[in-house]
C-alpha cells in the first residue's frame, strides 16, 4: 500500500493543481496520521486503565490500515444535510453520556 501511495495521490489530486495538489494531499494525510498518533499517545499516557490503552492501540492500528484516509474524511464532510444530522445526533448523545457517566450519575 505505502509504496503506491504517490500514485494514489497523483491520480486523485491531479485535478486540484499539478504538483501543488499532490503536495497538499500529502500534507493533509500526514496531518491525519499524526493526529491519530498524537491522540493515541495522549490517551495512552493519561488513561490509567490498561484496557483503555489497549483499545486505543487497536483503533490506531485499524486506522493505519486505511492509509489514504484523507479522501474518506473529505467524503464525510460534504455539505449534505444527512451527514451533518448524523454527526449532530452522535455528538448530542456523546455529550449527554459523557456528562452523565463522568459525573457518576445514573439517571
Amino acid at each position: 500500500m505505502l509504496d503506491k501511495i504517490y500514485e494514489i495521490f497523483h491520480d486523485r489530486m491531479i485535478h486540484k493543481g499539478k504538483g501543488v495538489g499532490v503536495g497538499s494531499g500529502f500534507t493533509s494525510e500526514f496531518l491525519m496520521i499524526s493526529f491519530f498518533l498524537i491522540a493515541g499517545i495522549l490517551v495512552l499516557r493519561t488513561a490509567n486503565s490498561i484496557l483503555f490503552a489497549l483499545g486505543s492501540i487497536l483503533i490506531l492500528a485499524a486506522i493505519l490500515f486505511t492509509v489514504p484516509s484523507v479522501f474518506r474524511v473529505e467524503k464525510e464532510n460534504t455539505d449534505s444535510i444527512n451527514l451533518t444530522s448524523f454527526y449532530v445526533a452522535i455528538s448530542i448523545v456523546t455529550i449527554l453520556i459523557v456528562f452523565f457517566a463522568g459525573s457518576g450519575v445514573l439517571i
Partner: protein
Amino acid sequence: MFNSTLIPLMVVFPLIAAILVNFLHKKDRSVKTIAIISSIVAVVIPILTLYGVHLFSGHIRTESFPEMSKLLIPDVYMGIVYAYGPLQKILLVLLTIMTVFVIFLSLNKKLISGVYIAMIFISLASVSAIILADDFFNFFVFIEVLTVAQAALVIAVRETKSHKAAFKYMIFGSISGGSILLGIALLLGVYGLLNMTDLSNAIKAGGALQPIALTAISLITIGWLYESGLFPFHVVKSNMYENAMPEVAALLQLQSKVVLVAMSIALLRIFSGYSLLKSVMLGFAIFTVVVGSVMALQQTDLRKLLSFVAVGQAGLVAMGIGLGTSFSISAGIFHAINDVLSMAILFFVAGFIFEAYKTTKVDKIGDALQKIPLVGLVMFLATLAISGVPPFNSYQSELRIIQSAVQAGYAELGVLVILLSVATFVAIIKAFYLIFMRPGSTAEIDPKFKGTMYKTIIVVLIAMCLFIGLFPHVIYDPIYNVIVALGV
C-alpha cells in the same frame, strides 16, 4: 454622564440605525450617510464608556427572601444586567472597527440596499449584547437574533447555493436554539435564577450538580458547539462563510469567534467547578482543528478554502479555552482576536479577487502578481501572519497556546498546534501560488475595478497585525488580568 449610562447604547444605537436604514431602503444617499455616521458613532461609544454594571429598568439588587423563594443566595439582581469591563471593551472595539470596515466595503457595491446594511447593524447589535449580557435569557434572545440576521446576510446573495446554506444554517439553528432555551429553562427551574453571576454563586452554594443541571449543561454545550461552528456543525458554518459575499464572510467569522469567546466565558463562569465541561470542550476543539485543516487542504476555491481555515482556527481558540488554565484561556482569547484580524485580511483579499475576476476558483486565475502587486504582497504577509510567523500577531498567541498546553501537561497538543500552523500555511500558500504566481490565466481582470477601499483597509489591517505582534502586552495583559480575576 460617561458612566454606566452609556452601556445599553452599544446595543440600542445600532438597532435604531438598523431601523432607520431599513426604513429608507431606497434612498441611496441618505442610507449611505446614516450608515457611515452611525457606524463611526458605534465605534466611539465603547471607547467613551466607563467600566461598570448597567441595571435595566432601574431594578436594583434586592433581598431574596430565601425561606419563601427557596433561593440559595441572600440577595439577587431583579432585572436584566449588563456588565462592561476590559475584556468586553477589547472585544467591542474590535467588533465595531471591523464592522465599520465591512460597511464601508459593502456601501461601495452597486445595488446595495438599506435592508442589507440594516442586517449588518442588527448583527452588530446582537453580538454586542451577547458580549455584554450578564443575563442568560437575554443572551439567548440575542443569539437568536444573530442567527436569523446572519442567515439574511447570506440569503441576500440570492443564488441557489446561498439559499441552501442559509436554510441548513436555520435548521440546525433551530436545534441549537431549542436546546439552549431548554437548558436555560431547566436551570431556571432548579436554581430559580437567570442572572449569570447569581447563578454561578447559587450553583457554588448548592454543592454537587443535580442530574437536571447536568442535562442543562449538555444542552447548552450543544448550543455552544453550533454558535462557535465546532465539530458537528463545522460544515454548516463553513458553508455559510463560503456562500456569503467575502467581506461579509469576514464579518461572520468575526462574529462567531466573538460569540465563541463570550459564550465559553459565560459557561466557564456559571459551571466553574465542573471540570468535565472543559474536557468536552477540548475534545470537540481538537476534532475541529484537525478536520478543518484537512478539509482546507483539499479545496480549489479560495472562498471555500478560507472558510475551512476559519473553522479550524476557531477550533484552535476553543482548544485554548478548553485547556482550562487561566494562561491557556487568555491565550485562546488572544488568539481569537489575532486570528479574526488576519482572517479578515484574507477574506477581504478574496473579496477583491472576486470583484476583479468575478470568480475565486484558484485554477482559473493566474499571473495576478503583475496586475495587483499590492494585494499579492498583503496576502502573502497575511498568510505568514495566520500561520504564526514571528513578527506578526498570531505567533504571540500560538506560542502562548503551545506553552499553556505544555504547562497543563498535554505536550502532544503543542505538537498538534504546530502541525495545524503548517497545514494552514500549506493550504493558503497553495492558493497564493496558483492565483498570484502561476503563469497563464483563463479569467480576465476587470480593467475598470480599482478597489482603493479594499487596498486601504487591508493595509491598515496588516499594520494592526504587525503592531499587535510587536506589542502583544497591550492586548494580552488586560485579558490575562480579567481571566485571573474571574477565577475560572
